[in-house]
């Protein structure tokens, strides 16, 4: 089994707000992130897939295909978007880094054919990242 990681970057804006909370609760729990006008990050995404090395190609996965899937399913949908307003997952779910990692996993996992998705890592800043391994 070999693990391969592909890195990508995207920039997006978001804010944290739960309509079930009172305005005071939203401010207390989410702090500055509750500003309804949103704020942005340069996200770094690391997608790790695993699989056996194909003896003929020497590949775990065709990197070109992986890059195309990543571009189509994730970057085109998220890059330079306001996550709360433009990405359907976040019409109802709060676009925290946790939920972003889960949404990216759910977008990628069904599209990968040869290799299996192992981990999605999303850096919101250099000092904060979330890992999702598909665990329920």
């Amino acid at each position, binding site marked *: 089994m070999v693990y391969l990681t592909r890195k990508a970057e995207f920039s997006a804006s978001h804010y*944290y707000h*739960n309509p*079930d*909370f009172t305005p005071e609760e939203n401010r207390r*729990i*989410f*702090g500055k992130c509750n500003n309804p006008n949103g704020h942005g990050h340069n996200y770094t995404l690391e997608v790790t897939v695993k699989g056996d090395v194909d003896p003929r190609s020497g590949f775990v996965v065709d990197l070109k295909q992986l890059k195309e899937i990543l571009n189509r399913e994730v970057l085109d949908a998220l890059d330079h978007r306001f996550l709360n307003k433009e990405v359907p997952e976040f019409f109802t*779910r*709060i*676009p*925290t*880094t*946790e*939920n972003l*990692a*889960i949404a990216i996993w759910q977008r990628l996992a069904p599209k990968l054919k040869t290799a299996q998705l192992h*981990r999605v890592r999303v850096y919101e800043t*250099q*000092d*904060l*990242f*979330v*890992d*999702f*391994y598909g*665990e*329920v």
Partner: protein
Amino acid sequence: MKAHLTRRYMFSASHRLHSEAMSAEENHSTYGKCNNPHGHGHNYALEVTVSGPVDEHTGMICNLVDLDNFVDREILERFDHQNLNTLSEFSGEVPTTENLCASIYEIVQEGFRHARLEKVRLEETMMNSFEYAGGAEIWR
């Protein structure tokens, strides 16, 4: 849905690697430059990884403010700009980064209640780092 969250912190401290159980020659051959009696310092980078289900109301594993407050109060205030050899944790133990990493793990493990601690990773320099998960195997 279970996810893992890692937060990175910086602190600076000095230490001297010296064991009372060794002769002067042994200390010198074991610890080399790190045995300098006057000590020396590092800018440590600490990564704390916690895990848990993502709360459906907040979208969070735990509130980062709670994690930051805990680490500021219990770790950074304790170790930042200190000489590690003078601290009670290291009165009978050499303040190697292995031991410092394990000490930090134990403090977070015992005191932080908002999420499950997975591991602590500590960079002493850009060239070396240490990870401790309380005896659990680190496989990711």
